[in-house]
């Protein structure tokens, strides 16, 4: 098994303006995802949601600035660290990951020899 990080990129505005109903659906979708991963033969090592980019602080060199490292419409809003057999397996799992206002990026975790 190898580790992959699923980065969830979504439009933050969509969440800011979402109705409680929609938020509820998103939470349920993530609960369902957590149940589906073991059924797929994978494992969630960890998964967290992040505060919006308006709360981010960036440091370049030693200059501290307000805001995210890169300003984009769709920003990382959460992540899952998963275990999967190979990329196809990881993608199979990541396809189930909720991201109704964007999409996900799958990155293999570096293994140091």
């Amino acid at each position, binding site marked *: 098994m190898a580790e992959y990080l699923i980065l969830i990129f979504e439009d933050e505005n969509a969440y800011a303006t979402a109705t409680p109903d929609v938020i509820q659906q998103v939470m349920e979708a993530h609960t369902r995802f957590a149940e589906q991963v073991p059924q797929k033969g994978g494992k969630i090592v960890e998964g967290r949601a992040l505060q919006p980019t308006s709360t981010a602080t960036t440091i370049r060199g030693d200059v501290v600035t307000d805001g995210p490292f890169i300003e984009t419409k769709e920003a990382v809003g959460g992540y899952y660290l998963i275990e999967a*057999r190979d*990329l196809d397996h990881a993608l199979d799992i990541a396809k189930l990951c909720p991201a109704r206002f964007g999409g996900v990026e799958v990155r293999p975790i570096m*293994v140091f020899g």
Partner: protein
Amino acid sequence: MSGSPPPGGPGCGGGNSAGPGHDAGPGVQPGTVSAAVADAHRREWAFVLAATARVAGDLDLAEECVQDAYAAALTAWTRQGVPRNTGAWLTTAARRRAIDAKRRDAVLRAKLPLLIEPDPPVASSAPPGAGAGEGEKVIPDDRLRLIFTCCHPALAREAQVALTLRLVCGLTTVEIAQAFLVSEPTMAARVTRAKKKISAARIAYRVPGPAELPDRLDAVLTVVHLLYATGHTAPGGENLVRADLVDRAIGLARMLRTLMPDEREVAGLLALILLTDARRATRADAQGRVLLLEEQDRSQWDRAVIAEGTALVLWALPGGRPGRFALQAAIAALHAEAPSYAETDWPQIVVLYDALLRAWSSPVVALNRAVAVAMAQGPAAGLAQIGELEADGRLGAYRYLPAAKADLLRRLGQREAAAQAYRAALALTDNAAEREFLARRLTEVTGAPS
């Protein structure tokens, strides 16, 4: 015995040479041996590399070992004679090297299992690999694993193409760079990056399961077709056709047909390529000028190739909705069988284009359909459809749109508008032969050299 088949059936060289080297006996001419090695390279590279990759667990190591094995063959075969089954000989030699290298680097390799093979070996529809000559045990045919790995959707299309040529066809980076008119360092970086992703992201060395197969196979077929199309009308340079790429693509399509005999789209792709390529000799005149379908000498089309392609179409079409390659091949077959351009079954071609648009919604298909409509219903009807495509905007940089439009305007006698469209097409093409054709037509409609 000389009757044993080569390990992998057709390689991707596209050649039709006879089977693997017969026993030439000791003391053979060096020329004969180097020819046998070259032949084995063209025909059996993919088989040898694919089988070695599974043992090596690393594409780079596998490539190195296979190259060493081919180099060793030159001396060994000169001394001992050319083996009956060259592919099996090379595979055994390359795998032995891979096992030795892995033993040497056991610690390092244990930490870097670069090629993932999670599936237990399953019985596949592929024919068994090497003939069991000379006490060799049968080597499984892993070429499908290799090509599906090279064409994995997690790799960019240009990387899929480069890897396929490098690993499945055994071309050097220099050769691939030349074929695609990019610098050697650029192509080397592209190949290295792709290989790194295969190992770092753990792209598995396997044939996808039934659920994924249609999409994954489509990517493989697209790569092979792209190779053919690139060779068929070289994107730049002096010659219209780059024969080496065309031959590689035909070889790959034949290889896939051998390895996946039940897949209709594989048959469709091979048919499409064969039916298009049957016209190769007539696509340009003696001076290298482009000749349109209607100007080509149909008596020079390769009838044997057309017959083979047509038989494949008839096999690929029935049995549920045909795929895009089978439908394109069916259109090519109608052209190939028509006694002349005017006597082509244009209404039937329009019907096939309608089906093709349903299977594969593409503005390029819609443009080709517009040309068929022009033939079936007159240039004005075709022109109306081209107008819609222009408004759509997706074909803004596609040189064949203004070229097709120009041709219809010319037929309608609208010389000024036609000239304008020919100029637009000229501005979009770098192929010397095509430029010459467009300039010639422009002169015709303006009545003077522009």
